[in-house]
């Protein structure tokens, strides 16, 4: 069985929001569209987005880490948002594990959003239906696109390539390898929702300096210390005979 997912590498995410906006622009004119915005030029502008980037600070100055944290629907393997939906509008696809909403069936009761611990669903306040990340299902299978572009919009755009996309059930996929090798983890594991999306933690490269690297044999200063004496400069030979 396939389970498609995003793996987000917090080690290189710089919090640039590229994924946020490319998601919006792809989806607003696609199958999920339009994604409406309320008060677009007024007070407290607010709109429907499938993906948001948040920022957290960890620790006290000066030992502070700033963590940029993108979050979209995690396509849980056991998605609590699905069984609660009274209409069946929310469903998880057998074939690839993508959790989707059928906008034609959704009655906008919001119940599924209550049942998502991650706050990953957003009601489109204009269309009054529930929306969420589709894993760009209308891109990844689109044969009109070149193979290399059959990826989610956010993955394509992410400048530091912090977003990986693939099948986490295939142990040889890039995402599985990344999860395995870089310590990929799930959000709020306490709920047993088994999010398909994983996050890769910060990793540090440090340098240890050994004393002998500082006291060097090849110290170029050694070349500066002594001026070569002239042949005729006085020496012990001139004053003693032993």
């Amino acid at each position, binding site marked *: 069985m396939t389970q498609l997912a995003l793996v987000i590498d917090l*080690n*290189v*995410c*710089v*919090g*640039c*929001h*590229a994924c946020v*906006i*490319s998601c919006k*622009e*792809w989806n*607003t*004119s696609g*199958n999920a*569209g*339009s*994604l*409406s*915005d309320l*008060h*677009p*030029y*007024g*007070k*407290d*502008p607010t709109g429907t*987005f499938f993906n948001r980037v948040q920022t957290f*600070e960890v620790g006290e*100055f000066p030992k*502070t*880490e*700033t963590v*940029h944290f993108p979050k979209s629907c995690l396509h849980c393997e056991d998605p609590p948002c699905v069984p609660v939906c009274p209409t069946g509008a929310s469903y998880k696809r057998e074939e690839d594990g993508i959790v989707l909403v059928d906008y034609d069936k959704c009655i906008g009761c919001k119940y599924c959003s209550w049942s998502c611990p991650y706050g990953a669903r957003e009601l489109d306040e204009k269309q009054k239906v529930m929306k969420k990340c589709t894993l760009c299902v*209308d*891109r990844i*299978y*689109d044969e*009109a696109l070149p193979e290399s572009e059959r990826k989610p*919009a956010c993955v*394509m*755009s992410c*400048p*530091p390539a912090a977003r990986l996309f693939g099948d986490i059930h295939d142990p040889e996929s890039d995402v599985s390898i990344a999860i395995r090798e870089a310590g990929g983890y799930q959000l709020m594991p306490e709920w047993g929702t088994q999010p398909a999306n994983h996050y890769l933690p*910060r990793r540090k*490269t440090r*340098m240890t*300096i050994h004393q002998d*690297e*500082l006291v*060097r044999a*090849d110290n*170029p*200063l*050694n*070349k*500066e210390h002594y*001026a*070569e004496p*002239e042949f005729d400069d006085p020496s012990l030979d001139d004053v003693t005979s032993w």
Partner: protein
Amino acid sequence: MQDNTITPDDHIEVKNTTCYMCACRCGIRVTLKNGEVRYIQGNPEHPLNKGVLCAKGASGIMKQYSPARLTKPLLRKKEADRGDSNFEEISWDEAFSILETRLTKIRETDPKKFCLFTGRDQMQALTGLFAKQFGTPNYAAHGGFCSVNMAAGMIYTIGGSFWEFGGPDLDRSKLFIMIGTAEDHHSNPMKIALSKFKRSGGRFISINPVRTGYSAIADDWVPIRPGTDGALMLALINEIIRLGLYDREFLINYTNSAELVNIDQASNTEGLFVRSNETFEEGCYDPQNKLWWDRHTNTEVPTRTPGADPYLLGEFETSNSIPVKPAFQLLVDRVKEFTPAWAAEITGIPEETIKQLAHEMGITARDQKIELPIPWTDTWGKEHDSVTGNPVSFHAMRGIAAHSNGFHTIRALSILMTLLGTIDRPGGFRHKAPFPRPIPPCAKTPKGPEGVQPNTPLAGMPLGWPAEPNDLFIDEENNPVRIDKAFSWEFPLSVHGLMHNVITNAWRGDPYKIDTLLIFMANMAWNSSMNTSEIRKMLNDKDENGEYKIPFIAVCDAFQSETTAFADLVLPDTTYLERHDVMSMLDRPISEFDGPVDSVRIPVLPPTGECKPFQEVLIELGGRLKLPKFVDEAGNPKYRNYPDFITNYETEPGSGIGFLAGWRGKGGEKFMRGEPNPQQWEMYEKNNCVFHYELPRSYQYMRNFNQGYLEWARHHRLTRYAEPITIHVYSEILQKFRLAAQGKLPGKQPPNHLRARVETFFDPLPFYHVPLETELTDTHKYPLNAITQRPMAMYHSWDSQNAWLRQIHTHNYLHVNPKTARASEINDGDWIWVESMHGKVRCMCRYSEAVEPGTVWTWNAIGKAGGAWNLDKNANESQKGFLLNHLIAEELPRTGNGPHLSNSDPVTGQAGWYDVKVQIYKAGDDEPEETWPQFDGPKQSIPGVKPRKRKWLSYFAGKGENK
């Protein structure tokens, strides 16, 4: 599943062009559905962004269809005040004839009364050409308030610089130190490179008072007190020299470290290099006629004498009895007292950390050497089997540039990079064509007012690179010729001008009154001015006769900005999706480390309304004003339009050099140089809008002294000289200005009131001084440094009209370390006052542990004036957002009757944005919960600007709603 919103009736087109949501210039692929933008994606075949796209780039749709767009030429109504945005619509014909009449008269009488200043544009080659042809010296772009310290500090030292001209080779680097950079021009490429670097195990250290953005993913964050990096750099140099961690071979062969400097205090040539008698042709290069002290023969020898091994340290006396020291010894003398312990006091960085930094740099550079099997030949004819490198790299930007001590800080940084031997070598700093250039580059301004003559092009460039005091652009009385006082004794090396002083100077009539100010793509009534509230008053100020002090202001902008409100004449520009543009080798191209790259924009959409590209405006005006380069012998316009101009313009008839380097020659068979090619645009279009020439591998490194490269560059006319570009660890150029100030150098002499200033700041070796403004501040009253940063998802003031981006940053906070805030009894989220000695603003406080406690910061230019950008009156930008610029003065506090001095670096005129000191305190409970100051928006709608409507925006391409 596929995108089933597309029906067979829909018309889909895909076009390539270049993004201009910021200065980075990524390649984009625009999909149109029924003539509306469906999707913008990064062009995977583009060398710069390789398919990725940032948030700004991805929100181009909302810029294109923004309700803040100007769509008609506008004239201020007679009865209306500037700032009221009370306009009537006029035709382009009227607009042109207003400009033509006015400018013809100015050009016939005194061309310098016309000033053309441009902001974050990418067409300085054309705007500069226009100004020069017009005959006015009063032209500059954003460089002076942006990062000229970076350009000047590095170019006067290594012949190239960060910014668009060079960068860190993160592919091969092992240790990367980023200093004072939040986002920068190399936006996407930097992100791509940083991630690859980190993933391949590179170590990334960020030196910054704040930890956000790039710094967030640094392995180590070194918080520093703003304005003190100079001290840090000097201490690093000190420690690296103390432990012998520098690259001696590099210093000897490629820098002036071993060259002997006259140290005879009595001499008029004190501080200059002692030269051999060998004579050299005058030219724009550094003659190789200096001396070394050879350790084998213990005598002076001409540099590079075969077999000689010069001392870097010591004190000697030449055969002519001149006491001399190698330049390196002078550097060592200089940094002796600048120990890590000394710097720790100033920077707030623990001594141990400073030492650790120096050790990591030195050891990585020396013990992880790179050797690439690439043979190359140096300019002295020596053949090398391989290219070697030391994998320590740096990047720095405005965090060190935008301080009034930035020039010397950046000199120190360049010297640090040089000591580590990392200039244009693998894993270190790498140049990008057309750099490296001679030190200094050859372009010069006229040397006096005689260069400005009626009906005549300027006798020189409006901006240039002074090599000695005689290059200054001043009159007999030492008065500046330029309105911004660039290239005067106040700011001798102000190579990018001082745009931030133009309005104040013009308003005051100091050094003279002007007539017409044409502003292109700069929001000078808002975020690119310091002292914004006062500047807005000056723009609207009248003299005793009721005439405006700045008689005529024309603004070319694409949006209803704060500045358009103050225009007499508004010229509506197209967006980047609607026009041709070139990112030219004559300006700042998008070159890669491996060779020159230039690129173009090709319209994917027709202009909106009456919008006209500013390029077309200039070409048309050039024809009407009969500027020589724009008309034929008969005086008729030479070019049909801008694309025609780009294709056919040559710098000189038959030069074969034009704006674009690719596909030149009749059939596109030549590059860099060649006859105009009528098919050039098409060829760019077919090639992703990019021309990329990859240099032979042996030309890709050590380009300051790479014979193959320099000859290639000379052959292709990137430069006139193929002489080596020796790195100026010691700057003789600066010393010449100092000698003039000491009265030791014949020729131009600073006026007495500036002698001490020039003598102090034109030090041939870097030193640390407290920023000028800080020096004049009561730091007990105003203890905190206030700085700004660029958010990654916003470009200056452009994007508040962008419905998607403004949801991410719709207002801003002042970020304060909780310790600092609590000391003033300020809670997270409180309304507070931030006050400098120049003014105050009210805003909201946000606690942050990611900021050094002596610093407060905010996102730049998020706050907006009420009603600007066609936002609702109660929009967050104006009600909760604020602009720090109200607190920053464009001039230093005046001492007595002294001159008005710009708040700028005394060497380069770089605006000292980040020198301001502030205090913070809680706003009263009775005060309104809105930011202060507040500005009224337009009372009436602006012709051609869509009315603010729409509670909802539900963009769906292809429905014909936005055509």
